[in-house]
């Protein structure tokens, strides 16, 4: 029997009917993130990416490693919303935004450096799927995913 361990490099890719600029805004501005990113308010200031929960609790506070709007964003990742995850080593998230023909944008998310963070790897594997399909729905329909 093989036991499934979450991958230490996770790759997610999807196509969204929206411009790269709109995709960039949706991943970097809190007026969008509150509508699809587990209701979190994401703020990017002073080289940090901070995420706040609905009651202002700090869910994430990580260094931004690269910021090249509207094409590429790289930041560290550490889940502060759960003490088990906060105790693990820092991982890394890369967002790549590439325009395609016909007003479509290809979004690739790579979550890597998860070798020292098995619980985080497990936790984000389902999480990114929800976040990304919610992001696609929000940008294409103007409505958040029902839920």
């Amino acid at each position: 029997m093989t036991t499934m361990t979450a991958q230490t490099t996770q790759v997610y890719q999807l196509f969204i009917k929206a411009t790269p600029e709109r995709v960039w805004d949706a991943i970097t501005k809190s007026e969008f993130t509150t509508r699809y990113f587990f209701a979190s308010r994401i703020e990017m200031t002073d080289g940090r990416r901070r995420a706040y929960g609905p009651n202002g609790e700090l869910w994430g506070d990580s260094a931004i490693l690269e910021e090249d709007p509207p094409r590429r964003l790289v930041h560290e990742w550490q889940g502060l919303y759960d003490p088990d995850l906060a105790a693990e080593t820092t991982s890394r998230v890369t967002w790549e935004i590439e325009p395609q023909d016909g007003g479509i944008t290809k979004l690739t998310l790579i979550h890597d450096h998860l070798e020292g963070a098995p619980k985080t790897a497990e936790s984000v594997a389902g999480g990114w799927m929800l976040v990304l399909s919610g992001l696609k729905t929000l940008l294409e329909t103007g409505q958040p995913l029902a839920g």
Partner: protein
Amino acid sequence: MTDDRVFKALADPTRRFLLDRLYERDGRTLSELESELEMTRFGVMKHLRLLEDAGLVVTRRSGREKLHYLNPVPIRLIHDRWIDKYRERYVSALADLKNELEETA
């Protein structure tokens, strides 16, 4: 239509086998994947290309190597579009049955 490509890509046992191998462990090279199949390198490449065209496999370069990653998003979108809604109907049919039976009891 993306859905067509995903369904077509999934409609082959070799390609499903490749997806299962990547599900177990991601980031494999062509040589690694090829070693698990009784098939020519060219044949495996062809299958991987179809999976890539359907968005089910994403390749990334790492130095001189090309690594293959399973991209779970298209299957999720198919699930949301084609499976979830039928499951909901099934669940609500059971709920209706329960209500009806309890009312007449």
